[in-house]
């Protein structure tokens, strides 16, 4: 299957946006997952619901909310531009932010399961051996939750390759800047004679998604084996 330069561009952009989105959401997602798994605080249920919002709210609404917050006139967007000269709307960075918000719950859910699977007796044992809170987190908790976290990250990456609604609303559909695979497919369908291009890109998206999911499963299995679980 040979791809045209525009198709290559869309593929590269998709990979770029998905990578940046995971890089952006991974650490906060681990933090939130840990809070949800272990935290005992008043707003826990509210936080849980907030995290899951992008899964249930229409992606267009998420894009609109981002536009309101991070737009040139938005409370955050205006300051970003004034202080750092950073503009997110209509940029690759903006597409990555929209994708990160959409895939955030995927990482949180997987990482939270990872944390919840850990036998807390192991952390107690580490305590009696002299390990303080941070020490315990980095030597026991995090490595044991790693299979869940990594699986979540890979799933988020695969899903991020295909984020459509939030990206097109917040970052628009600019070839070479924000036109990722799904947006390119959408444009191809809209263009007379673009059916063949749409089909090729759709096939590509499908293969990427499948390999992403298989990779996630493989990583999880490998790590579980390493941890002596079956």
């Amino acid at each position, binding site marked *: 299957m040979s791809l045209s330069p525009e198709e290559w561009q869309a593929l590269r952009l998709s990979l770029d946006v998905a990578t940046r989105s995971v890089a952006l959401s991974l650490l906060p997602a681990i933090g939130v997952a840990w809070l949800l798994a272990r935290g005992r605080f008043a707003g826990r249920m509210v936080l849980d619901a907030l995290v899951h919002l992008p899964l249930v709210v229409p992606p267009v609404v998420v894009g609109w909310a981002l536009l309101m917050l991070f737009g040139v006139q938005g409370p955050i967007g205006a300051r970003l531009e004034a202080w750092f000269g950073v503009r997110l709307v209509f940029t690759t960075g903006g597409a990555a932010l929209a994708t990160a918000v959409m895939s955030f719950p995927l990482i949180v859910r997987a990482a939270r399961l990872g944390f919840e699977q850990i036998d807390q007796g192991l952390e107690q044992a*580490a305590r009696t051996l002299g390990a303080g809170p941070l020490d315990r987190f980095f030597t026991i908790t995090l490595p044991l939750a790693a299979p869940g976290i990594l699986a979540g990250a890979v799933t988020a990456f695969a899903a991020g390759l295909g984020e459509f609604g939030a990206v097109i609303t917040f970052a628009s559909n600019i070839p070479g800047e924000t036109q990722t695979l799904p947006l390119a497919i959408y444009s191809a369908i809209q263009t007379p004679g673009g059916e063949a291009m749409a089909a090729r890109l759709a096939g590509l998206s499908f293969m990427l998604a499948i390999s992403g999911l298989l990779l996630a499963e493989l990583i999880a299995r490998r790590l579980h084996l390493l941890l002596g679980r079956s």
Partner: protein
Amino acid sequence: MLEVSLTHRYGRAGFTLEAAFHAPAGQVTALFGPSGCGKSSILAAIAGLLRPDAGRVALDGVTLLDTSRRLHVPPEARRCGLVFQEARLFPHLSVETNLRYGLRRAPRDAAGPGFDEVVVLLGLAPFLARRPAGLSGGERQRVALGRALLSRPRLLLLDEPLAALDLARRAEVLPFLARLRDAARVPMLYVTHALDEVDALADRLVLLEAGRVLAEGEAEALAARTDLPLAARRDAGVLIGCTVDGHDSARGLTRLDFAGGHFLVPLRDAPRGEQRRIRLRARDVAVATTAPQGLTMQNILPATLREIGPTGTPQEVFLRLAIGPTILLARVTRDSVERLALQPGQEVFALVKSVAFDPAGSRL
């Protein structure tokens, strides 16, 4: 020396734990009692994993917990090595890294056996590169013992370390526990509900029931008391410290000396001079008023009947027999006492079958 005094109430319907005792350095103090009597909670409170409602824990003069002063040293700063029922090895780390986990976090100047010494002591050399998942239950527990010992603790807490193992594995780990006791110069608290572990390891005994201390003292002294729940057990009887005096391989017998006399037992594989502790069950001891003839029993020991006491069963009594400074208990029927007209102060003979001695109860 460890001093403990704790009060804790479980939930609303639960019983109240109210325990106070002490444990000297270099000795094993066993917390012995039925399941659910609060033994494990006591260990958790000493280690700092459980916050009791009220209490005080002090180790070698350093206070670890004092609720009246709102003092609660966190577990990671207490330096109490804790061995759990399930080994709780870190599954993502090799056996060697597990062993070094506590060692790396111990203070530089903390005294204790070195890594190589512990590996030899517990026979861990073949497993060092392996992951815990590849070990048997007994091997895992040995690694857990080593890991706790290597954290250079000021106190070793063992929470039923053999309870999750089958009989064969227990027999495999028990000698290592005895070695650990001899290597660790810190107080050891050993929670168990298995009497043979007490016999094999404990110097002192704290008897617990429903969250309260029934009695506390030397294991031998408590075993000789007839007013404790211990006496109601089938295997109730005295613990006697013995020295292996010699073997008669022609007759297939080993002679064990104790203060006031000696026992002949079936030949044992033990070097001369070795210290052994044996449990002599009260139901295995018979009494005669005259030296019997034509009897298979090897052990016929002149003794003085000190006391006739109740057993909790109306038809049976305990006879307290003195052989020199050593006390034996014999459990006999009330009818036998009346038939022989036994009286305290009377000179009698204590009869014990050689095969009645339980090798499992020997001090290893």
